[in-house]
């Protein structure tokens, strides 16, 4: 498992390599490919404890992002993130649309054009708060937040965000859902991974893979 400490970050400034246009394009493509490759899996997870559309929703959102990959990648990082968020808001069609859309839009608002690690940690924290506000939700309710939170911690302490995301997604399995459609199932929501937790983990892995290569 790759160690984030060995990444190309310059330890002295705490700044990751600049996220230039080719990297931004690679990030969008990697996110889209991850959603396309796992659409059926996400849908199956959502069938178990929801309405079975999460894979389809994410696929629709990232198809739209991919269709505009030139335009999105050409923008400076903050504007690109905002535009990406807006695309998800407009295209996803499920509760995850405004939630992921808010996540990306807040990152765009909070990040400078060339962020360092501290900027990233702060921006991710702000984005999580915005998702909580949008979803009237918090950690521990068996949602995407239960992956985003541990990823934020990993970023803050410099540990591996991919591993944190995967572990956190697994950890939603025994949770009782109290937000979103899965909450309709009450106790029966226990024993299944939350689909939004899984899509969050997939996105974190896709981003980490691109940045580690970058």
């Amino acid at each position, binding site marked *: 498992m790759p160690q984030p400490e060995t990444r190309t970050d310059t330890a002295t400034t705490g700044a990751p390599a600049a996220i230039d246009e080719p990297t931004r394009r690679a990030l969008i493509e990697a996110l889209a490919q991850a959603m396309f490759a796992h659409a059926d899996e996400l849908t199956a997870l959502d069938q178990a404890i929801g309405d079975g*559309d999460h894979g389809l929703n994410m696929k629709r959102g990232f198809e739209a992002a991919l269709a505009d990959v030139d335009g999105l990648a050409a923008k400076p990082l903050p504007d690109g993130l905002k535009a990406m968020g807006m695309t998800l808001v407009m295209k996803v*069609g*499920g509760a995850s*649309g*405004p*939630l992921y859309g808010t996540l990306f839009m807040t990152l765009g608002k909070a990040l400078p054009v060339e962020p360092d690690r501290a900027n990233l940690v702060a921006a991710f924290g702000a984005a999580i708060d915005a998702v909580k506000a949008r979803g009237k939700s918090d950690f521990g309710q068996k949602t995407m937040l239960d992956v985003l939170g541990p990823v934020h911690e990993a970023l803050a302490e410099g540990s591996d965000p991919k591993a944190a995301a995967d572990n956190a997604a697994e950890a939603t399995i025994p949770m009782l859902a109290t937000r979103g459609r899965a909450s309709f199932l009450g106790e029966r929501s226990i024993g299944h991974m939350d689909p939004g937790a899984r899509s969050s983990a997939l996105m974190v892995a896709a981003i980490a893979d691109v940045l580690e290569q970058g």
Partner: protein
Amino acid sequence: MSNVGIVIVSHSADVARGTADMVRQMVGGEVPLAFCGGDPDGGLGTSVEAILGAIDAAWTDAGVAILVDLGGAETNSEMAIEMLDADRRDRIVICNAPVVEGAVMAATEASGGSSLDAVKQTAEELSQT
């Protein structure tokens, strides 16, 4: 001033259309009314773009009351409201009421010239008669 407008947002285009039919039967053309249902591809879900279009279609200076069904319809409606001009944002509410019964009650209240607050309250007080 025109009556408060009503916007119906359901995951299902059929539910949205049928609810609008029921509202029209009660209030005729006295209340600005718009509806939307379905995700951007027409499947079950909601679309922020369609919600924004419906808000625009039902807009009046007296404001607009939105009726939604389940979680995503509410979250997407809240998202849509935040994308409006500040000026409109203050005159639009989401009712914490069931979509079909709430829409009929809200529209009936609106047809009497009631304020946005009164329309919202009537929809939210709803219990089946």
